[in-house]
């Protein structure tokens, strides 16, 4: 019989180790193979994914909240730390009688985390931690922006006749605040995953600089990793006397890590991404004479390539620029192509249920709303977890939608708003063909995803 577990105590450290010892001894006496991770001041004796996978039972003895996402699907018993100390043997008796598998309950905090980090390590895990931190901002921000659009596409602009104070407030909450925090939270989350609490400050600063410096999603990701590793490096290599330990944590590490990360974002990370962005803009300008289908497919594909990142933003900003010359077709193609990635994912989770975890299917429901509102970012969580299968599917579907929209000559007078502006008469020309373009792209994306993605069970094994 194999048992693994976690002991943790909110105050002091002694009880943590004592509970671990009591359970280990009681387990050994019965000939169980038993390992207890201690979450005291630091995590020690950490359980590996393999050990958790092989364990028959999970025991948690804790006076604080222990993150149980690692143990989904295992037989698990949670007891107070004092119970384990008082009667470790009895606690094990109760554990091995336990028959029901631990599931993420819908009202617990673990359900926010749609990513199964139990089977992944290293860079992938850090990335997923960052994305799971960011996700609530995308969902709340995106829906709140969409609510603002419902008052009229320009209702948040004080200079516009349709100005509405509620719309402006919604835009401030969703666009001005929640969305503005996305990249700082992403980068902060990645850095937190790498270097714990010390990483949050340099990571968030890196994300902020990715916004201001225009390196977008990609810049924030690279910056988050840089911040995490540089913080670890500083933490390990700056030695101070025992009397100055607290100064190191509150002053030296934050100062050096933020400085190093900031300069990296301003130079080695920010500049190459800005360079790529500039090259791309030139490239697009040289292409404007080519035929509508090619441009539509190219624009559509790029919209889906990084979902709100530099490629996406380059194309949409370029298209908005064309609007000032009275050319309103590219922005329509962009918007349509930006709507299909979340919609395609949502459809795919419906038609190919077994390719997705339960949590992913739940999360994908929001994508119907995000997609309909032209918030391409809704697709990011799915793309990040399985980029080589998901991104080509999204790009292909969006390219078809973009090409169709351009082919039918659909024009849009509004640069944003998705389905909400379609409800306003005369904003979109040739609306039936426009909707057809979006539907076809959504179906193509969903079918391609459903074919290429592996079953969730298989993904878990690998």
């Amino acid at each position, binding site marked *: 019989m194999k048992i693994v577990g976690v002991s943790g105590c909110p*105050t002091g450290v002694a009880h943590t180790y004592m509970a671990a010892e009591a359970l280990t001894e009681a387990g050994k006496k019965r000939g169980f193979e038993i390992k207890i991770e201690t979450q005291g001041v630091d995590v020690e004796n950490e359980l590996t994914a393999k050990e958790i996978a092989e364990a028959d039972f999970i025991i948690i003895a804790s006076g604080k909240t222990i993150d149980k996402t690692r143990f989904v699907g295992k037989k698990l018993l949670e007891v107070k730390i004092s119970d384990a*100390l*008082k009667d470790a043997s009895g606690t094990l008796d109760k554990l091995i009688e336990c028959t029901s598998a631990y599931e993420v309950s819908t009202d617990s905090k673990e359900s926010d985390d749609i990513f199964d980090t139990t089977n992944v390590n290293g860079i992938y895990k850090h990335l997923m931690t960052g994305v799971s931190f960011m996700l609530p901002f995308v969902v709340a921000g995106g829906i709140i922006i969409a609510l603002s659009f419902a008052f009229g596409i320009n209702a948040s602009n004080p200079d516009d006749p349709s100005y509405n104070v509620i719309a402006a407030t919604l835009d401030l909450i969703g666009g001005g605040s929640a969305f503005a925090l996305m990249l700082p939270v992403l980068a902060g989350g990645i850095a937190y995953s790498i270097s714990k609490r010390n990483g949050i400050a340099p990571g968030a600063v890196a994300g902020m600089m990715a916004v201001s410096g225009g390196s977008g999603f990609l810049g924030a990701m690279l910056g988050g990793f840089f911040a995490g590793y540089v913080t670890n490096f500083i933490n390990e290599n700056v030695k101070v006397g025992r009397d100055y330990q607290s100064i190191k944590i509150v002053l030296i590490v934050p100062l050096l890590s933020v400085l190093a990360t900031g300069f990296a974002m301003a130079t080695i990370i920010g500049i190459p991404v800005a360079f790529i962005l500039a090259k791309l803009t030139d490239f697009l300008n040289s292409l404007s004479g080519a035929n509508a289908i090619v441009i539509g497919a190219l624009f559509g594909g790029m919209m889906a390539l990084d979902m709100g990142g530099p490629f996406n933003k380059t194309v949409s900003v370029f298209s908005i620029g064309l609007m000032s010359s009275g050319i309103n077709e590219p922005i329509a193609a962009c918007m349509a192509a930006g709507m299909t990635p979340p919609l395609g994912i949502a459809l795919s989770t419906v038609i190919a249920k077994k390719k997705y975890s339960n949590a992913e299917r739940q999360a994908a429901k929001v994508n119907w709303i995000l997609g309909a509102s032209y918030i391409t970012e809704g697709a990011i969580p799915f793309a990040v977890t399985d980029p080589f299968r998901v991104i080509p599917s999204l790009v292909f579907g969006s390219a078809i939608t973009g090409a169709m929209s351009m082919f039918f000559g659909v024009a849009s007078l509004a640069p944003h708003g998705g389905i909400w502006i379609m409800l306003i008469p005369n904003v979109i020309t040739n609306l039936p063909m426009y909707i057809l373009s979006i539907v076809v792209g959504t179906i193509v994306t969903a079918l391609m995803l459903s074919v290429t993605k592996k079953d969730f069970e298989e993904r878990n094994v690998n």
Partner: protein
Amino acid sequence: MRISEENFLCLDISNPNKKDVLEEVSRLLFPVQWEQAKDSFLKRENEFSTGLVDGFAIPHAKLDFIDEVKFYFINLSKEVEWGTLDDSKVRTLIIMVIPDGDTNQLKILSSISRMMMNQEFKAAVRAQDTNIAQKLIEERL
């Protein structure tokens, strides 16, 4: 890690009450900064009693005026109502103090904590048998 006679103490207490005992212990171990030590111990007790089973308790604190982990095994002259897991009254204190802001010595703390679950070790501590206690700790480390 060495333990010697110095780690074992007996304390004659007048008032069998947790707060007074911790004050007397603090005065005994830290004659200069006893008030700070007493406050740290009491703060810890108020969060979650350190009482274990069989009349043992493990008051512990982080103190910024010490340089290394110290521990003391103290037998009390009277039983004290402490708040233990088995409602027993406390006869023996195992005191641990660690320097504030230092996590390097956690290993020692963790070993001592784990030893608290060992019946033989508890018996040796109560009997103040330095040799057996030392031997058990060495086996463990």
